[in-house]
């Protein structure tokens, strides 16, 4: 049929570049902060100027190098036992990143699975999972981790377990709602009409559409996981012994906050920067990935 016009398509601009552009400064700043955090955690032994556990009581409570009385060897000063604050901050990032990654991933895995189930089956399955979420959400994570610490002992495992047990609900609830929305879309109906089973429909069609949302949730969850770990190590039921953590540094600095305020202030700055970095990164990624934003 000659009169069917043969359409040609303009070459679209690079998708990667377009995505980066949509992400904007949020994406850049967030990525830089997250990269800083992750690199510090990975290369802690190389970056830290001192052993974080090495005590030097002769040079205790030294102020940062640029203040009067500071020493160039201890860039950010020392704590009450003469340990290098900079090295301890860098090593603390390891604990924070580990908790954030493991806890957020596990919480996401459980939450997404149950959210998809609830959102796609509806009926009593949905009722059951939704009520479970309600009950679970009413339980404060810090309280739960204290209970867990009492039962299975303090340590990273109980911190991670506590975060996962409580925070899967955050994923489950949002994924459930979004699954329901996606299932009403025409493309989902079209996919059912080509004979896909429910499992295939969810895996091949729905799940890829949830990725932008999931990325944001993951980033936010990692920030929350870092905060929970800080709280728990502040009260002393996170990692055992003298492994440095931001929370324990704050706890130690609190006692001498009038003599050496930087010991408490510096870990707080690290925490705030990490959480803001993660949130910005998640937000930027969502904008970069979101199909709705695509023209």
């Amino acid at each position, binding site marked *: 049929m000659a009169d069917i016009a043969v359409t040609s398509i303009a070459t679209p601009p690079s998708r990667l570049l377009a995505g980066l552009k949509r992400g904007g400064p949020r994406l850049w700043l967030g990525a830089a902060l997250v990269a800083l955090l992750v690199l510090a955690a990975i290369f802690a032994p190389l970056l830290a100027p001192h052993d974080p556990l090495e005590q030097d009581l002769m040079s205790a409570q030294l102020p940062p190098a640029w203040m009067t009385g500071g020493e160039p060897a201890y860039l950010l000063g020392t704590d009450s036992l003469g340990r290098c604050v900079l090295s301890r901050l860098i090593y603390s990032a390891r604990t924070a990143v580990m908790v954030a990654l493991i806890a957020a991933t596990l919480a996401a895995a459980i939450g997404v699975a149950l959210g998809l189930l609830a959102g796609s089956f509806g009926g009593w399955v949905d009722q059951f999972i939704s009520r479970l979420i309600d009950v679970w959400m009413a339980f404060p994570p810090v309280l739960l981790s204290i209970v867990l610490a009492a039962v299975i002992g303090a340590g990273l495992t109980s911190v991670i377990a506590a975060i996962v047990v409580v925070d899967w609900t955050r994923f489950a609830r949002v994924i459930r709602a979004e699954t329901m929305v996606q299932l009403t879309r025409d493309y989902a109906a*079209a996919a059912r009409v080509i004979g896909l089973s429910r499992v295939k429909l969810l895996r091949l069609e729905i799940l890829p559409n949830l990725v932008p949302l999931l990325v944001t949730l993951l980033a936010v969850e990692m920030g929350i996981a870092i905060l929970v770990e800080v709280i728990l190590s502040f009260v002393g039921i996170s990692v055992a012994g003298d492994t440095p953590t931001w929370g324990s540094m704050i706890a130690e600095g609190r006692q001498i906050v009038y003599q050496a305020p930087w010991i408490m202030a510096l870990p707080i700055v690290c925490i705030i920067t990490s959480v803001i970095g993660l949130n910005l990164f998640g937000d930027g990624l969502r904008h970069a990935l979101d199909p709705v934003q695509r023209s």
Partner: protein
Amino acid sequence: MTATFTVEGLKVAIGAANVLRGVSLEVQPGEVRGLVGESGAGKSMLGRAVLGLLPANAAVTAGRIAFEGRDLLAMAEAERRRLLGRRIALIPQDPMTSLNPVKRIGAQIGNLLRHHLDLSKRTALARAAELLTEVAIREPERVLALYPHEISGGMRQRVLIAMAFACDPALVIADEPTTALDVTVQRQVLQLVERLRLRHGSAVLFVTHDLGVVAKICRSMTVLHAGRVLEEGETANVLTRPRHAYTRALLAATPRADRPAEALRPVPPALIEQLWSEAHRLDDVAAVDAA
């Protein structure tokens, strides 16, 4: 010869409201049948019932839908899924939203082919490129690597048409495939449907409210109103000698260049009931006017 597709006395209810009230129709192998009616006549509901897409609050209360002699409503879910997409296919109404926004065109056609025909990934992609060529898309390999938002609405509709005919279906249900497109593209789409159905030997149930479209491509037609079949027959006969007042009103409401169109006179449901009970004998427009 068994009909490809038979609907017998189908009744569908949403809550207390009866949306389809005993619809019967038949599509022979290779036939193109138009299913026309105004909004709310139940034509989309019929298509949805066939495809198992009825909304959760709707239920089939009576009747039978048979595909090649097998009862679609009675068969097991897994068996029906094997028919859908392969033997019964849908050309959806809105090309803008009926493709998955986050998957490449190639992946979407490829999935369909692999799901039903058990092809390897590479063969499926090669076959997908052939299908795109069939619907007059140039540089099919390049289009396969694009996302739906990167191609125009007309192209998306062609991709959907290619997908509908991909597995040589016996029946294609076209659910107002031209409604969301502008007029110049509509014609191309109609020609494509016509060409592909001939090539793949499929029957088409063309759901539309556009009598012009029906006149162009459907050999036979069924007029639906308020959940009932008012009239059916050869398109030429129905359009030139409409037996029923409603069909006449529908025709008069079709915009044409040579005369001003009349607004479609709504037919009161009570009157339809009366017409129905009098066994299609009331052919007089006067009856409508008097009401």
